[in-house]
């Protein structure tokens, strides 16, 4: 998650630490409650450094649950400082935040971790204790996509699909929003401009987005690891394409798929094949 967090908040590092502290135009709800009115660039940099350190210690299993709580506080602070400036609320931390929240209540640091080495006498983990945070995280990730599809449906209905107009507007916007360069090409991604001309393809992509988002819960019932990998691979491609074409910063989110949706049976099946190939290669 380190690159994910950096991508979300790196812009806050470009601010002048000793410069003016911006008075928020529309603070996020918990800043409003806490009376936080200004963006403090030095505090933002400190919070980002803390988040990166806590993410590392969480991954290593050092003071795991405490690290999860520190991550939650740092994310809330950073997100508040970034989003309160103009009143937009970006939801890219929704999945990591929910997962860390659930893990903070679990025994996630009790095995295969630095914590386990420090406290070898810890009671053995029961099956339900290790599985509930993973199952809950799976459900939350699937729900995250479902809510997205539901909101799209509520706002646009069939217009999202009908003539590809919504996606066309988005792609045009992302390719031309910084104007036209000296070579006559849009300053944004020229591929986005090419896509904006492909109406049939846009309709297909819009339909696929709807199906993927509204049907994401089906992945919870997919027993074949290959099918699961195919579906999640498609979603990963969706996020990568969104980033390349439109700079939508969910690009590192698919890391949660590899963590929470068990793809090990597929790897077990592939590993011997790869092993045979590499053995043949060394002969």
């Amino acid at each position, binding site marked *: 998650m380190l690159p994910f967090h950096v991508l979300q908040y790196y*812009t*806050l590092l*470009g*601010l*002048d630490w000793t*410069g*003016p502290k*911006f*008075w*928020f*135009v*529309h603070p*996020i*709800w918990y800043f409003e409650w806490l009376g936080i*009115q*200004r*963006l403090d*660039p030095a505090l933002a940099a400190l919070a980002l450094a803390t988040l990166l350190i806590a993410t590392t210690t969480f991954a290593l299993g050092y003071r795991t649950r405490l690290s999860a709580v520190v991550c939650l506080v740092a994310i809330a602070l950073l997100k508040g400082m*970034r*989003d309160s*400036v*103009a*009143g*937009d*609320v970006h*939801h890219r*931390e*929704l999945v990591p*935040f*929910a997962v860390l*929240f*659930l893990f903070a*209540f679990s025994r996630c640091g009790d095995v295969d971790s630095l914590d386990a080495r420090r406290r070898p006498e810890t009671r053995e983990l029961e099956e*339900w204790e290790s599985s*509930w945070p993973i199952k*809950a995280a799976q459900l939350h990730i699937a*729900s*995250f996509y479902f*809510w*997205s599809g539901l*909101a*799209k449906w*509520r*706002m*646009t209905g069939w*217009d*999202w699909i009908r003539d590809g*107009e*919504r996606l*066309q*507007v*988005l792609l*045009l*916007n992302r390719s*031309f*929003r*910084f*104007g036209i360069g000296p070579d006559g090409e849009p300053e944004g991604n020229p591929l986005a401009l090419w896509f904006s*001309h492909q109406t049939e393809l846009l309709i297909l992509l819009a339909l696929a987005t709807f199906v993927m988002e509204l049907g994401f819960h089906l992945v919870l019932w997919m027993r074949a690891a290959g099918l699961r990998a195919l579906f999640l691979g498609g979603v990963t491609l969706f996020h990568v394409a969104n980033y390349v074409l*439109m700079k939508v910063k969910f690009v590192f989110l698919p890391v949660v798929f590899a963590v929470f949706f068990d793809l090990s049976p597929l790897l077990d099946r592939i590993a011997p094949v790869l092993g045979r190939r590499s053995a043949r290669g060394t002969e």
Partner: protein
Amino acid sequence: MNKRSVAWLLAVHALVVWLAVPFRIDEFRLTWAPMYAIQPAEAPERRSVVLKDRERLEREGWRAVRADGGEEWVRRADLNVAPRNMWRLYYERSWGHPPPRFKHKNSGGATLDRWWLGIAPGEPIFVENWERALLVSVNETLGRAPGAPDFIVELHAERVRMHFSSETLERLPDTRETARLRWRTEWNAGSAR
């Protein structure tokens, strides 16, 4: 935690999170509505894109008029905000254009959240005076109080909109738009927020 407390935690968590769906609570960390679903075309016969002139925001920004009649530029560096935030402030809020979640919340007719809040179907739920919010923000950031000669009473913004035909996406003539935000004396008495 024992099995019972985990079951309670998950039940309460699921209840809170899923209740937010029918009530359309798009607040972190409850449900979310994507920002990208709310951009319909300006008109059926054409598509449009607002140009974001990054250099202009660094060099000039808003043209501000002070209470003493003097003028100055308010650039991104003066406010010390990230470039993306500056675009949103300058190219969206200056024109009273709200964040997408406002549009999500205010859309629709007879919704459950309107019924709960006692708001008539179709009436907006989120209302914000962006003109005032922006002027308060700029003045507070620069440390200027109402009544002071250097208090900023007007902000002027300008933007270019590119147009394309919806049939062939052929370029049509651009249009230039201006926004003028003006401080009203009745706002002097109110709190900053």
